[in-house]
């Protein structure tokens, strides 16, 4: 809906410091996000469901985007969430954070803040103790801010 150009402007305004100036070597073809996903969660085919992911549809600034992610699980030693991974494929480097739980965690819920260099779909993967992998995704728009770059 919002034109990408708008967000590129936001990007250049941010470039003053945020670091999301793409390095020269990143100007080539987009890196294969699937490779990154496989190194994180292995070969299992991700299933839909079990994850709730709360993140604003539009971020006023890409430097800090608040989110809460939760994977449903009884969190007992025979059945718990091992990890939740967050990826922002259109960032200069796609990995955001990975969170690792134990049955002692009680629930697999985390709130944190991510950086988004531009408008994109944020990906979430949850790894269960039985090897199953769940996924969800959420588009986030990053807007031009301030009095103009």
């Amino acid at each position, binding site marked *: 809906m919002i*034109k990408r150009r708008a967000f590129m402007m*936001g990007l250049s305004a941010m470039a003053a410091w945020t670091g999301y100036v793409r390095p020269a070597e990143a100007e080539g073809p987009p890196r294969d996000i699937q490779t990154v996903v496989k190194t994180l969660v292995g070969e299992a085919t991700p299933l839909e469901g079990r994850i709730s992911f709360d993140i604003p549809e539009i971020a006023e600034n890409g430097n800090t985007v608040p989110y809460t992610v939760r994977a449903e699980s009884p969190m007992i030693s025979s059945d718990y969430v091992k990890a939740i991974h967050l990826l922002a494929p259109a960032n200069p480097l796609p990995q955001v954070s990975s969170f690792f739980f134990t049955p002692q965690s009680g629930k697999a819920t985390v709130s944190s803040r991510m950086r988004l260099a531009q408008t994109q779909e944020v990906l979430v993967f949850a790894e269960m103790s039985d090897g199953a992998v769940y996924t969800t995704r959420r588009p986030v728009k990053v*807007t031009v801010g301030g009095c103009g*770059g």
Partner: protein
Amino acid sequence: MEKRRITFVLLVCIARVDPSCAQEINDIDEAKIDAAMRAAFPKANVDWLSRLKADQTIAGCSQYKDTPPAAPTIAARERASIRYPPDGELMGDWKRGEQLAQSGYGLRFTDYPPTRGNGGNCYACHQLTKEELSYGTLGPSLAGYGKIRRSSEADTKAAYDKIYNSQATYPCSLMPRFGTNGVLTIEQIKDIVALLMSPESPVNRP
């Protein structure tokens, strides 16, 4: 407060008859403001200090909180400062105009030495193309500007004049006098006129 407002209105009325009384309107005199301003920028050199000094028009606008009693005088004075391209062509390249409308670069103390031309930063205050949704609302929407006006010659000149010196059209307008103050060049103003008026411009596309 109420009392002060009444005083204000009364003085404005007198000022309409006799502009020389203008100095008495503010609670604080212009010399005090000037002195405070001069002391507040100890790092500024002579060039920069000259920016603090308002010309007659702007000083009057500040004085009357932008509701000037002598609007026709201001309009006439400001109109006299407008310069036109030698060949009379008022429309440039709308694509360059769009870039200027997006850019807020230039004249800030971090913009020296300059790395590119000044921007117009139109989107900070105006809606223009329908594609750009990150636009401000300090000024009116300019979406479809040329289409509504059917791109007549008189309207093109009016657009040029408003960008060059908004106060020639609207005395004490909040919009910068881009041409008169040397923020934008004649060529740049032509590009923005094209963005507003050209039938090919995305501003005028449905």
